[in-house]
């Protein structure tokens, strides 16, 4: 497994929360947001289990909506604890990245 994939594994759930901070969305569109954000293609087999986990932990709230001219879609949005988690974990992450950058800097 290459390095990038390993990094992504660690932060995918936070990235999903971040993607939804911009507003509610459904599975395929979330994948597009992540890809547009530079994270590359997130396979459905990775994304949907992550969404289910976040929903189970109460960080996401979901509802099914009848699509216009199509079958029902499952929409995800951040819950209050989801938003809170994103804020605090985001702060921790920034500190973490800062330290990693500092150590990796070639003097």
């Amino acid at each position, binding site marked *: 497994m290459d390095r990038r994939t390993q990094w992504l594994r660690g932060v995918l759930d936070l990235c999903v929360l971040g993607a939804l901070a911009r507003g509610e969305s*459904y*599975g*395929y569109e979330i*994948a597009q947001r992540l890809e547009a954000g530079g994270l590359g293609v997130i*396979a*459905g*087999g990775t994304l*949907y*289990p*992550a969404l*289910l*986990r976040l929903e*189970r*932990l109460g960080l996401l709230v979901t509802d099914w909506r009848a699509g216009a001219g*199509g*079958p*029902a*879609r*499952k929409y995800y949005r951040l819950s209050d604890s989801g938003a809170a988690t994103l804020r605090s974990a985001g702060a921790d992450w920034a500190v973490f990245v800062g330290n990693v950058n500092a150590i990796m800097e070639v003097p």
Partner: protein
Amino acid sequence: MTVDDWLAALSAELRRRRIDPAGPVGEAAAHLRNSGQAPLEVFGPPAAYAVAVVDSLRGATREPRPPRSGEPLLRATGITKRYGRRTVLDDVDLSVHAGEVLAMIGANGSGKSTMLRICAGLLSPDAGHVRLGGTVGYCPQSGGTSDFLTPDEHFVLVGAGRGVGRTEAKARGRSMAAALDWAGAPRAGETRHLSGGTRQKLNLILGRLGDPDVLLLDEPYQGFDNGTYLDFWQQVLRWRDAGKAIVVVTHLLNELDRVDTVLDLTPGGAR
């Protein structure tokens, strides 16, 4: 694999694991429609994806179990068994109530099969007592069948012991076979011609025939393919919901979060 085939396979795999497939299959279908990519690329093999979905959902699907009350249907106290100098079981206690599944685990040679046979009344312990609150059914790891009889004849024979009529016994045996993915039971020939796994299905059915209150199963899934193994655990949980007390000896640990109690017979292990 076409999209429809993949979705159908996913649906079947989820249903086998007792998950309502509507949500995950709907989402996957929509995603595939939007992306236009092949399902194996996006999600991987349906069985693997189903496992990932189930793992993610596992916390949510645990229904709260009501607390145990009343007399246990099976209670073993102080069971000790020695073979020569070797103490196989040392003062073991076990109790299972109606509507409960107990998994008995432990290393090879830790006495799991011996304990089960003592509870079934096939072996005498050196010390201890077993109280049964109902009828017992037992499925050994192997054997327990007659080579020259057909499955139907087995159903009739065991059924007659339980007071079940001929036609009824055959019907019940056949329907249990179907639930274990063995559609060929009615047409099957002599048992000696069956594969090992199929013979074990017969063994399991015979243990359960007659609807005993307590079921003692000694790793009955020998030779089961993965699908049947899952069907087997489905059946165990269904029997539990119907109020049976079930003990399953196993050394496969994947299913432990689905059972109500775990008894570890490894010497020095937690009791």
